[in-house]
């Protein structure tokens, strides 16, 4: 097991370096000069001032040197300095990371839980109205643009009914502490997490349903029936566990999509996470910050994939032992 984890970590490290290198060159291929943007912020800028900024931030060095400096820094967990925000990139990201983790994890749990439960229900009632309802809902969620769902949720639950807050991480300026703060954040979390999880909820519903139905056709289910086992036990012990295998695989893939989707959700709901940080960094051509966010989100994806793989080995003895 340890060897497996080490192996996967090694592979992940290689992919990360490759991602960093590619991102670095991609982003440097972009038009726009960060020095010029900074000079603009200062109010007026002559060429001399821009040159001064460029030198100050090492932007005048050859590209490869800049890359080498950056990669070396990353090894020391130094993600560079954000010229625009005047803060170390790592600090910026880590100050925003908890909000994103909270959002994505909640969305993840909501979608996985509701999705599989609904999928199991639908599979148990194939062809009945409850199956039709769940399947239709899944189809709709599957086709709904994430950001639009978010907007409609705000319109309905925040503007029209005024039940839930439609933006932000907590009630600004309220300075709640303790349990009240947790509840407050929880309230703010409901709409963004649900809308972010909506798409994958649909995916889990469909996949669980299909997988349950497929597994229920397999020979060992017939064996279980031949034993005289109750349908509920067959459903739970034989069908569900086997049907969950593809869902677990999918859950690992979802992580990556969630980070991407967070860019949209965080934009609509003004959620102070790295998704929004990324978009800000991009608009401001904050190279180091952008690279940093990419690095961290890719690392997150790799970490999730690793967790999934370990989990998969846990649930599937064939992979664990082989």
């Amino acid at each position, binding site marked *: 097991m340890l060897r497996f984890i080490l*192996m996967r970590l090694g592979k992940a490290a290689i992919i990360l370096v490759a991602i960093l290198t590619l991102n670095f060159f991609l982003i440097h291929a972009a038009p726009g000069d960060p020095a010029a943007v900074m000079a603009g912020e200062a109010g007026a800028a002559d060429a001399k001032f821009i040159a001064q900024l460029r030198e100050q931030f090492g932007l005048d060095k050859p590209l490869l040197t800049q890359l080498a400096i950056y990669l070396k820094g990353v090894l020391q967990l130094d993600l560079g300095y954000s010229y625009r925000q005047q803060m170390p990139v790592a600090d910026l990201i880590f100050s925003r990371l908890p909000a994103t983790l909270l959002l994505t994890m909640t969305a993840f749990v909501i979608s996985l839980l509701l999705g599989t439960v609904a999928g199991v229900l639908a599979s148990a009632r194939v062809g009945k109205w409850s199956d039709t309802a769940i399947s239709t809902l899944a189809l709709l969620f599957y086709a709904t643009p994430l950001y639009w769902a978010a907007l409609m949720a705000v319109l309905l639950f925040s503007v029209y009914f005024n039940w839930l807050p439609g933006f932000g991480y907590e009630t600004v300026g309220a300075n709640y502490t303790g349990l009240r703060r947790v509840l407050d954040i929880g309230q703010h979390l409901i709409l963004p997490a649900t809308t972010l999880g909506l798409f994958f909820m649909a995916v889990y519903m469909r996949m669980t349903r299909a997988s349950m139905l497929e597994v229920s056709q397999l020979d*060992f289910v*017939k*064996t*279980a029936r031949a034993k005289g*086992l109750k349908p509920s036990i067959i459903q739970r012990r034989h069908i569900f566990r086997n049907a969950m295998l593809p869902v677990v695989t999918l859950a690992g893939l979802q992580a990556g999509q969630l980070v991407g989707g967070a860019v949209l959700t965080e934009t609509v709901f003004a959620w102070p996470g790295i998704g929004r940080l990324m978009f800000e960094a991009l608009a401001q051509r904050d190279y180091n910050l952008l690279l940093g966010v990419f690095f961290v989100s890719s690392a997150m994806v790799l970490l999730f994939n690793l967790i999934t793989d370990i989990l998969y080995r846990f649930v599937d003895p064939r992979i664990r032992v082989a």
Partner: protein
Amino acid sequence: MTDPVLSIRNLKVALPEGADRDFAVNDVSFDLYPGEILCIVGESGSGKSMSANAAMGLLPDLVRPVGGEIIFEGTDVLKLSEAQMMKLRGKKVAMIFQEPMSALNPLMRVEDQIAEVFEAHNLLTPRDRAKRAIELMTEVGIPDPEKAARAYPFQLSGGQRQRVMIAMALALEPSILIADEPTTALDVTTQAQILELIRNLQEERGMAVMFITHDFGVVAEIADRVAVMQYGKIVEAGTADDVLDNPQHEYTRKLIAAIPKLAAEAGAAAAGKTPILEVEGLNKTYVTGGSLLFSKPRIVHAVNNVNLTLAEGETLGIVGESGSGKSSVGRCLVRLMQPDSGTVRLAGHDMAQLSGAALREARKSIQMIFQDPYASLNPRSKVGRIIAEGPMAHGVSKTEAYGRAVKLLEMVDLDALAIDRYPHEFSGGQRQRIGIARALALEPRVIIADEAVSALDVSIQAQVLDLLADLKERLNLALIFITHDLRVAAQICDRIAVMQNGKVVETGPAHAIFNNPQSGYARTLIEAIPGREKELAAAG
């Protein structure tokens, strides 16, 4: 005679709309008596499994019984509720299946799956269940049952898995055991062991066994009584001896006649003829699951220093069980697989050393016929193109290649119109003929037939074997016939090489091997052939 434990009367089982016939089982009646083994025999699609499944209440979706009754202990099980059926299943009637791998839950330990049978009927405490599981596993002859009980299905061999299935089925001492092709997926030696186990257990417990099979060898080995099915009807029934020795129905007669006879003739000695193919010191190892830094690879010696010669016009059989390396040898010969070392001299060229255009050219002389009639033809190509493609790749014009294709189709007894049709329009046997025509298109001198008839029903099998023998004569082909089925080998081969674990353990003329095997393994193999004793007895 005592009363039957199970009595099937005028059973009708309907197939869903759009199937090739209306009823899977049409007006079938038979009785199963305590302490007997009833074999239900038929080719694929004859409906032989359906009546058994109906008795268990385990018919597939959309297939339902529409008439007749199945009387068990005085009640018609077709009229029982699902809850009542659940009480019956496992306790009174148990079942084992063809594919023991897929019939076991891959994610559960073996002992838990056995213990579930008790749980299903609320018997014993969990601890006792585990104990009984191990006892049962001991009883069905699983070595080191304590350890095996903790294993997952994939960690057991095919035979052991089937033993687990049997242990499970016997747990509650049912009065009826339904065995649905339980040995079809197993190697011949394992098959012999499992058949013996079933026979012994049945005798010890006085169970009734309904044994479903397509293999008359197995029938001869195990049956007390036989029912032969065709197109959903029972065409003949009686005691095993009656049906096997004196079949009444034409279909039964045809089936039995189609079984390759074990008696290999002492054919014309091949010695003295010029060898066309000589294999020396052939080796192939597989390396699996290793990676550069982190794990140790597993090495399998699939072909281990194999030497063979094949004379012009001769048929050489390579026989062995799965994993013996027989297919790897065949693939190395045509270079579908790259041997690690050794020479393959084909009409003067060393096939093992060629590459690129030279290899393509040399391969014209050595072609292959494949096992699976469904997978061996490109479903998106018309038959004409499938056959003509080879010659065209070697520069023959399209017209000429298609002309030749028509001739070849006629040669394999197919209509020339076939060239404009797609493979899915043909039956399995016809497809195999197309495969043979394709192999002949390049006018090879050697043909390698890799399990070429294993996927066919026995009656079709016989036709294809006849065709091969005939073509071999007419075209003076040399044939390497790779098979796990010793009966087939006995029928068609001049000489036979027996393989085990990558090595050739014995070579010799077919009749010599069958009548007087020298190596221990060859002997085991031959003794395990189902129905052999009966056949020998009959031959006197």
